[in-house]
Structures are given as C-alpha cells and as structure tokens.
C-alpha cells in the first residue's frame, strides 16, 4: 500500500488534467454554451446522430406528457426488451433496463420482476424532472436494448460495458472501457465501483485496469484477467467517436460507445463535461495530448478518417510518459 496521496510534482510529470484546468482551459474555451443542449439531451443527440448517419440504438418512442403514460401498455406490447431513459439524465441515473417478460411482469437487468405500474411511476418521475439537472421537466425515451458483444462475456456484471473516448477538436485522445460490477450495482460509473480499463489508442488493447482508484488485475466478480481485453474493430470505433465532433461542434467531449452483437458500434450518449478518471485507467495524464492537439496547426478540412489515423499514430501507447512531457 502506497501513501494516500500523490505529490503535485508527480501529477505534473504525468501531465494529469485537474478539474479546474479542465473547466477553465478546455470546457470553457472549446465548448460553446449554445451547443450544450445537443449533448445534455439524449433525444437531441440521438436525432442529430441519425441525421449524420452515426449509428445509435434505435428509438422506439418518446413519452412527453403525463397523460401518455396511461396508454403505455399498448406501446410496450410488442417490445420484449427495451431501455427506458430520461433524456436529460446524467451519470447513468434513472435508466431502467428491461431484458424480458414473465407473464405480466417485466424482468429487469438485475433479474428483479417489476409490474407495469412500476414502469409508469418511473416514467412519471422522469417527466417531473427527478433525474434531470436542476429538476427541470424532462421526457422519457424508450429505445432498443443493446445485445452486447460476445467479446465482453465474463467481463461485465449485469450492465452493458461501454467505451468512453475523449475527443478533442475531432481527435480521439484517450479511451477506456467501463465494466459494471456487483459493487457498482450494474452501472458503468467509475466512482460507484465500476472497473475502468485503459485502452491503447492504436490497438484497443488493455493497458491497465482500475477499480476505486486502485490498480487491479482480475475482474472482481468473474475473476477473468482484464489484461486479455482487446477490442475488435477498434478503428471503426474511433471513427465513430471522431465523427461526433463534426456532429456537435463541441471541442472537448466524451463519447460513450457500446458494441452491439449485430449492429456493431453504437453511440450511446455524449458528455460535454467528461470525467477525469480516464487518466488513472490509462496511467497517464491528458494534458500533454491535449496541448499537442491545441498547438497543432489544425487543418479543418481533415476528415474523421485522417484525424483517427493521426491519433492512432501520434498517441500510440508505447511512448513513455517522459516523452509525453516533451510533447508539451
């Protein structure tokens, strides 16, 4: 067990991006306020993605008004599995996943059985703004459930593993895989106990794995070695992430991508204030890479393919941290 804190000097060496620096130097500078609703509202993100031919889980229907909730049964009738989400929810809050049916009951991803009234109440809470920022009124989205890819079997407890990629001015700069655990209650949030796996930007293979801010080797629930992870179709995933920049015009975003067994990578949601924990899972700071992109003479006509190509070459993980510091 090492000491419970790390020196500022060491953080600088790693080029760790702090919360204040992220807010002042990147979010305030590169994310224009007017584009925020595009990512804060999942419905808008989804519609925008469809417009730009970016694959996302299929939208079944939207519940906008309280009175629509009464006739919800008819709309759910032909859906065996679905995900119910608040459009303005943050941090995975308020997401209800139904994986199947048993008679009149719905089966949640946890295996628990719930009734239609529970779904109604959940929808009513969503509409009242219980899960939205500042409690403003919201709408409920019902969408296709992801059939998650076999390559993650044994790596996730209940929830869907998702890939978070930080995209700065269209260039993917860092990536991680988030695996739900029993401790995180099936959610893919790192601060709730999900496992974060840093992914090499050139190949999509595992770099390091972290749970609760501490390095681990095996998945805590299934015991599978995390270092074996290697994401297939990596270039395609990065391409999807990079396209989100053209779609939203936001300079600094976190893209959450899931792999569907049948449909391939899907954009789940975007985040204009992506967290910092990704740095721990990668064992290096974001700052050198962000500064590198920032100081680069950006050719706006670069297409997503070229940007991905550049990132994969430039940020290949075999560089040592020391070299990264020089890149600043």
């Amino acid at each position, binding site marked *: 067990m*090492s*000491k*419970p*804190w*790390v*020196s*500022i000097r*060491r*953080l600088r060496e*790693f080029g*760790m991006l*702090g*919360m*204040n*620096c992220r807010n*002042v*130097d990147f979010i305030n500078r590169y994310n224009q306020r007017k584009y925020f609703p595009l990512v804060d509202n999942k419905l808008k993100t989804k519609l925008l993605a469809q417009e730009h031919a970016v694959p996302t889980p299929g939208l079944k229907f939207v519940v906008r008004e*309280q009175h629509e909730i009464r006739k919800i049964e008819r709309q759910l009738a032909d859906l065996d599995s679905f995900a119910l989400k608040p459009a303005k929810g943050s941090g995975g*809050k308020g997401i209800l996943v139904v994986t199947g049916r048993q008679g009149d009951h719905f089966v949640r991803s946890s295996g628990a059985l719930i009734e239609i009234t529970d779904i109604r*109440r959940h929808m*009513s*809470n969503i509409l*009242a*703004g*219980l899960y939205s920022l500042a*409690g403003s009124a919201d709408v409920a989205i019902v969408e296709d459930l992801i059939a998650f890819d076999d390559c993650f079997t044994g790596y996730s407890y209940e929830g869907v593993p998702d890939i978070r990629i930080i995209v700065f001015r269209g260039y993917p700069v860092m990536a991680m895989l988030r695996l739900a655990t029993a401790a995180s209650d099936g959610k893919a949030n790192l601060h*709730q106990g999900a496992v974060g796996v840093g992914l090499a930007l050139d190949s999509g293979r595992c770099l*390091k794995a*972290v749970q609760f*801010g*501490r*390095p681990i080797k095996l998945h805590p629930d299934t015991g599978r070695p995390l270092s074996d992870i290697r994401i297939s179709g990596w270039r395609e995933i990065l391409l999807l992430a990079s396209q989100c920049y053209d779609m939203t015009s936001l300079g600094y975003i976190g893209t959450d991508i899931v792999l569907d067994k049948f449909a391939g990578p899907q954009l789940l949601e975007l985040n204009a204030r992506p967290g*910092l924990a990704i*740095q*721990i899972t990668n*064992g*290096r700071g974001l700052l050198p890479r962000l500064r590198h992109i920032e100081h680069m003479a950006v050719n706006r006509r670069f297409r997503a393919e070229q940007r991905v190509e550049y990132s994969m070459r430039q940020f290949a993980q075999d560089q040592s941290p020391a070299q990264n510091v020089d890149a600043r």
Partner: protein
Amino acid sequence: MRHLSAGTPFLPGQEKSVWLVEARVDFDVTEGPVSASLGLPDAHPPGFELFEEQAASPGYGFTVLGKGDNRRAEWTKREAEGQQSLYYSAQLVESDSDGASASIVVFPPKEYNNYWEDAQELAAQEVLGLAREKSSSPLSLTRELIKLLNSPSSQNAGLLRSDTLGQAELLIHFLHRADIPARYVMGLYLEDARRRQLLTPMVEIYTKQEWLLVNPKTGDVGVPPNLLLWHRGGVSVLDVSGGKNSRVHFSMIRQTVPAAQLAQVTKSDSVFSRLGVQRLPIEEQSMFKLLLLLPLGAAVVVFMRVIIGLKTSGTFMPVLIALAFLQTSLVEGLISFVLVVAAGLALRGYLSRLNLLLVSRIAALIVLVIFMISAFSIIGYQLGYSAGMTITFFPMIIIAWTIERMSILWEEDGPSEVMSQGGGSLLVAVIAYLLMQMPLFVHLTFNFPELNLVLLASILAMGQYTGYKLSELWRFRAMDDF
C-alpha cells in the same frame, strides 16, 4: 481612506479616551441685568477634537458667539441676585491632528502701551539687549528672554518681576518690544478626575508662518500632549458685567468610549460616513450586517470547492446554513439542522411511496418541514429549552430542497455519498460560520464595506485557478503506483 478621514477604527473594540471638561463660572451679582462671557476653545484645538458641548445654567439665556479662536459663550439674564454659578461643559477627544497651523488666524502685532517706570524701562532695555546679543531668531530670542527673566541672580529681572504683571504678560511685553508678534494664551492641563483647576497662562509667538506655543516658565516649545489650549483669542477669558468676584475654574474626567461609536458622532459629515451603512436606520443596519458578511461566506465556498475540492450538496446552501447558525449559535444550530433534515428524510420516504409529481412532493415537504419546526419549537419550549425556537431561522425552502436532494442521493448513490456530501456541506457551513462570527470580520465588513471588493478580487482570482485541487492529490493517488 475611511480609517483616515472618518476615523473608523480598523479593529473592533478599540477605545479612545474622551475628556469631559467642565468650566464653572462663579460671581456675585451687584445689579442686573447680568451678562457673562467666557472664552471657549476652538473646535479643533491642537491634539484634541471637540465633539459635544453644552451649558447648564438655570434661568440664563445661553449662546455661543464667534468662530475659531474667537468663540465665546455668553450667558444673559435680566434679573439675578446673590451668588451665581454657570456651567459649560465640553467633550473632547484626543486626536492626532496638530491643529496648530490650520486654525490660526494671523494677528498683527499689537502695540502695547508701555507703563513701565524709568528704572524698569532701563532694566527692560538692558535685558532685551542681552537677549538680542545671544540670539539669532525670534524663537531663540524668546528662549533667551525666558532664561534671563528666570535667573535669580539678575537684578534687572528681579526688578521687573516684582511688578504686578505675570510672567507671561511680561514676556509678551518684551516680545512686542522686539517686534515679534506674540499673544497671550490660556491653557488647561488635563489630568484625570481633577477639580478646581485654573487656566495656565502661556505665550504663543508668530514665526515662520505659524504660531508656536512657548511655556513662559520653562521655555519649552510646542503643545504638551495633555495641555488643552482653552483660549487663544487675546481678549480676556472671562467678562462679567453686573457682577463682581468673578472667577472660573475647571473640573475634568477622562472616559473611554468605543472608537467606532465615537467615529460616528464626531465625523458624521465625511464622505465616507455618508456612504457608510451606519447612515441607515438601525433595523436595516442589522440586516446589512448579515448581508455584508455573505461575500465572506461565498469566498469560503469558492475556496473549499475550487482549491480544496470538497463536495457540497447545493452550491451555496452552506452559506445560508452558516447565516442561520449566526442567529442560532453553532451547537444548537447544528443539532437542530441535523434533526430537521433527518426527520425530513424519514418523511420523504413516506412521500415517495405516494407516487407524487416532483413539484408537489417538494411543496408537501415544505409544509411538513414547517410543521416539524413548529413541533420542535413547541416541544423544546415546553421542556424549557429556548434553543428550540431558534430553529425558525433556517431557510425552509433550502431545507426542503436539501432533504429532497439527499433522499435522491441516498437512493441512487447510497448512504455513504449522502454522508460525504452532507458532511462536506456542514463542514463548509461551520468554517464559514466560524469566520463570519469573528468580531474582526463582522467589524471590517460592516464598517468598511469596500473591503468586500478585496473578497471579490480573490473570488475572481480563484475562478481562474487551473491548478490541482487538494482532493485530486488523493483522487489520483494511484498514479504513484504506475
């Protein structure tokens, strides 16, 4: 600036001494109408500041005439009999101003009638001659004269001294003879709790564009700190018409008065005090006292969140809680706050089962919180704890929202997150409270509202801080293992 020109003290509880000087004029009436006139000190005598004066004399008309060095009090009465006592009292504050050059009206040297006899005239000329030889300036001449007049061995001085003139008057004669402007000044030595004091004659000479005070006995130059120049006018101190045996004597005491209070009374016409909060009615003042403390609380929140990285529930909720603590006192406030929020969380558990819309749920919570608070107050009062009553100072709506947010947090992130955010909020609130209740800060923010601009500057500076938060040193601790 405010400190210098309005005299508002920098530190709370600072005290200044105030001299209460009372002049008592006694005389026997010979025939009416009676009028008595007493020379008064200027409003800014050197080393002092006059801030209040009054006269107490039954049956007499009283006015203050003249300005500056010529101020005189005048008592008048048509008919009077027997011994009369008239009182004039003044309150003076010790101040740093020398007042000497500022308030001086330049007097042309007066030609004094010379009523010395021949022998005296001769002696005077000899003394003056001796003094002139040994001196180079009006000041040194004055000193030499005093030295000669004081020397016991000198025959000439002895001859002159035996005259009815006092030492001071004698000196003025000499000075006028030497063409040095000089005047007669009555000073009062201030000593605490003295009665029946008399004025001490002093001499002022005019040199280098200002009047200099000279003690005719010792030759010391300058105004001693405990000497109040009572009368500088040149005319007599006390004039009584229609009376005899007139005399004036003084009694004085020294009081200490809180400097802040004094500043309000003495300098009420300065620009700063016009712009100060003290000009408002007392009721609004006490509100402003709280309001002007808010920036301090806000700065604490910014510091704790930006530099330390503490999580709080609701951005400025801690400041409002701290304000409530100011009214309740810390321990009672903490206990009642935790009680109300805990009871609210329990009630909220019931409300969530009713499947209510958010707005009505919070409204219901507000009603319940008010009921709870009333219940706590009543029960507390019946049990004899008046502390229960102070609960009402908490902002209800903030409490209702806090309960709602805590309850959601509890459901989604578990009790540990509730504890960490709730504890963080309370910690920030307690720190803000501890700062806001310090007499020094209360005093500074209230009396120097412009100091809040310094806080504003520090808040702006912290808003640009892009370094690491203290909590991030812990959060990124795993980096040490790589």
